[in-house]
Structure formats: C-alpha cells, structure tokens
C-alpha cells in the first residue's frame, strides 16, 4: 500500500510537471500551464461559484445513484433468485446495459421536463443496469453446497436468502455498486451538459464556449476529483461489508 501510494504521488507529480512545461512552451489558451489552472480554480472557489454548482451536481448524483443502487439491487436479487423473473427481464436489461443511455435523453425531457427530475433519471439510467447485472450474477454464482447445507440444517427460504444468498453475493453486489458509481458520475455531467445547463456541467459548457481554458480545466479536474472521491467512498463501504472476501483474494 505504501509503495502503491508513493507511485501514485510520483505519477501525479510527473504529469503535473509535464503539463506545466507543455503549457509554458505551447499556446497557453489551448493548454494552460497548471499554475494558471490553479489560480482559476482558486478564484472559482473563493467566489463560491464552484461550491454552489458542485452542491447542485452532487445532489443530483446522490439522488440518482441512491435510486439506482436500491432498485438495481432489488431487481438483480429477484432476477438471480427466480428463473422466471430473469427470463422475463434479461432481454431488456442486457439491451439497455449496452445501449447508450444518452439516446433516452429526449424521451426523459418529454416525461420529466427540464428540471432536476430529468437529471436524476439520467444518472439512474446510466448506473442501474450494471448494478442489476452484477447483483444477478452474484446471486446465481452462490455455491449451491452452502444452500444445501443450510437446507439440511432446517433453514427456511427466508433464512436461506438472508443468511446465505445475500452475504455470499455481497462482493458481486458491491462490485456492481462500484461500477454503477462510475457510470453515475458520467450520467451527472452528461445530464448537466445536455439537458439543462446547471451544476458543473453548465460550467464546462460556459467556459468551453468562452475559450476560458484555465477555468475549464479547473472544473474538469474538480470532476475527476469527485469521481475519485466517490469511488473511494464506495470502496471503503465495500471493504466494510465484504472484508472476508478481500482477505481471501490476497492469499
């Protein structure tokens, strides 16, 4: 972990140095030196603009992702547990999993209007299918010997579900949640750029069309930071819930 961390730091520092040099050699409008971006970022931060927009964005992200995780896990569990539900739904889930969610944006605007509901719906659509599929796969891959063992000790269906299936499928479910979080961030920015100009998406569009590249990069870097931090949060949750699995994987 320590050597990994130091390699990460080395990677960031060398990229930053390269960026600064490239920015100073070349046209600073196209690639602004990192120091300029830093200044722009600081200005955005002090003015409160970044914080206000980020709050809007993260609200959408949280709502959409929460819905996607709850509904996605629920549908995934049902599909994994009941063959009939799986056969009823897997066609759509698989189709929507690979279809570009962006294609549904016009439909969502018609259904939900141009408000926050539409943006939440985009985040939801981006994230939900990967969570469904991972949850379903996790449930289907539960070792049947464990289920048999529980049954032989007199477990009822409810006990088999809560004491065997759910904990055994938890690593796969959390993997789906992790992937879903990544997709949710993409959905958030997409919705803010395509639907209604709000949040960090609006800032990107604004600075992009104004050729304010230093502020533009400041926003982009902020989004990257959000992506990393949300991912870390999910990973932390994952380790809390399925620590036993990680230990096995290391051996």
């Amino acid at each position: 972990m320590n050597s990994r961390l130091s390699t990460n730091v080395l990677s960031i520092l060398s990229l930053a140095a390269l960026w600064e040099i490239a920015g100073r050699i070349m046209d600073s409008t196209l690639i602004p030196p990192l120091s300029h971006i830093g200044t722009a970022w600081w200005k955005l931060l002090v003015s409160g603009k970044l914080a206000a927009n980020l709050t809007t964005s993260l609200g959408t992200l949280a709502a959409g992702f929460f819905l996607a995780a709850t509904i996605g896990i629920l549908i995934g569990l049902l599909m994994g547990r009941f063959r009939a539900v799986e056969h009823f739904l897997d066609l759509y889930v698989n189709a929507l999993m690979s279809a570009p969610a962006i294609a549904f944006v016009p439909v969502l605007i018609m259904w939900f209007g141009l408000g926050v509901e539409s943006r939440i719906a985009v985040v939801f659509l981006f994230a939900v299918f990967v969570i469904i599929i991972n949850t379903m796969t996790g449930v289907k891959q539960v070792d049947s010997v464990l289920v048999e063992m529980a049954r032989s000790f007199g477990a009822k269906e409810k006990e088999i579900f809560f004491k065997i299936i759910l904990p055994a499928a938890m690593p796969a479910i959390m993997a789906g949640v992790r992937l879903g979080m990544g997709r949710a961030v993409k959905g958030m920015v997409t919705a803010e750029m395509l639907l209604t100009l709000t949040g960090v998406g609006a800032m990107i569009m604004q600075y992009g069309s104004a050729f304010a590249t230093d502020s533009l990069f400041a926003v982009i870097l902020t989004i990257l930071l959000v992506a990393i931090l949300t991912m870390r949060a999910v990973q932390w949750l994952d380790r809390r819930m399925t620590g036993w699995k990680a230990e096995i994987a290391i051996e």
Partner: protein
Amino acid sequence: MVEIRKVSKSFQKTVKDHTTRVKALSDVNLSVRPNEFVSIIGPSGCGKTTLLKIIDGLIPCDNGEISINGKSVTTPGPDRAVVFQTFALLPWRTVLANVEFSLELRQLPKEERTQTARDYLKRVGLADFENHYPHELSGGMQQRAGLARALAVNPTILLMDEPFGAVDAQTRQLLQEELLELWQRERKTVIFITHSMDEAVYLSDRVVVMTPRPGKVAEVLDVPLERPRSADQVRGDPKFVELTNYIWHSLKNAMGNHHE
C-alpha cells in the same frame, strides 16, 4: 433405526438438447441399527451421495421409502445432521459463528448458542481457533469445524459424505481416529460415505458395498474387529487385511459386471 426400503432415483440429464434419464439408484435396501457405524462404499457415480441426500430429506426418491424409527422421511429433520465433503463452511463467518449457524436455525438464544458452539469446538480440538475464518485454517481443521457444527445440534444420526476425502493422508488418519473416539463417547448412528476401503473397515461395524450406476447394494459385510480400535493395531490385524482384500474383489467384481 434407519430403514431404507426399495429406494430408486433417476435424474434427467440434458446434453445438447438431448434429454435422457439416468438411473442413479435402483432398489436399494438397508437397515441401520441405532448407534451403529455403517460405511457405504462404491465407485464414483454409484449414487452414494444421492442416497445420503435422500436419507437427509434434501431430495425425494422416486420409489421406495426411508423411515427413521418408523416415521417416513421427506424433509431434513432435527434428528439428522450432515458433514459435507467440501466442508460447506460460510467464508464470511468465523469458526465459532459457523458452528453457531446450525443452532441459530434451531432458534436457540444467543448466549446458549455461543456456549454450545464453544463446547463442541473444544471437543473437536478447535477451542483456540474460534475467531479464525475458514480460509485461515487447514482442510483438516475446517472439517473439524464442519463436524462440530453437525454435532452441536445433537442429532441421533450423523450423515457423513466422504468427509475426509478432501484432506491429506496424514490428516485423514488423525481425523478417523478422532471420529472414532467421538463416536465412542457420543454414541450416534453414523452413515459414512467413502471410497476408501481402509477407512470403511477401520471405522465401521458394517460395510455396504455398492455397484456402479445404477447403484444397488452388492453386499453388506460385518467387520469382525474388536472395539475400541487403535489404528496401529487394526491395520496389522490379519482380519483387517482379509476384509479390505475381500471388499476390493467385491468392488472389482461389481465394476466388471457393469462394464462387460
């Protein structure tokens, strides 16, 4: 008294859209007395495990009947507990919590559960490992935990499905000796599936030899060895050698008849 009467079972097998019925067990008859140690031995695929699952009530038989003390068996019951070949421990639970699992299902209060589980872990020699996770233990230790989990519910009948098949030879011998000691103390009816002739003879009062698919009882043999048995003494005993030889020939015969 466990009575197996005319039990038959077949499975549907589908290979590339072609469905056939495979007969796993055909007309199996056997009576096991209370506190008796009976081994069932036979080649792979003779339906030994299927038979054990039917006795446990995990799967139904097509024809025939299993009865325990006169009562017909259709579902798993508190009078029986299974020890699984692959241990079937829950990897997210500690050894203690794994043993408690069987007691949880019987709705025992938490304190009593922990106490009972600790007691049985001590009996199988795992007292110091209650907070370990299964993957931190050797195969032999994992199976000790599996045995403790089965014993903890205090069954009258212990169903063991090749329980020592997945551990190394030395551990296997140790576990056999420990099992005999436990059995001597706890006095349970044991139905023990194995494909090791040594193991069957060393442990059992009677050895049931089965034929290959469809599994039938080829022979039931009494083991004429005194108890308590010590491994070293038994393995040198001419009666032991004679009986294992006899079983070997019996198995070979059963398999020969099957192939020709």
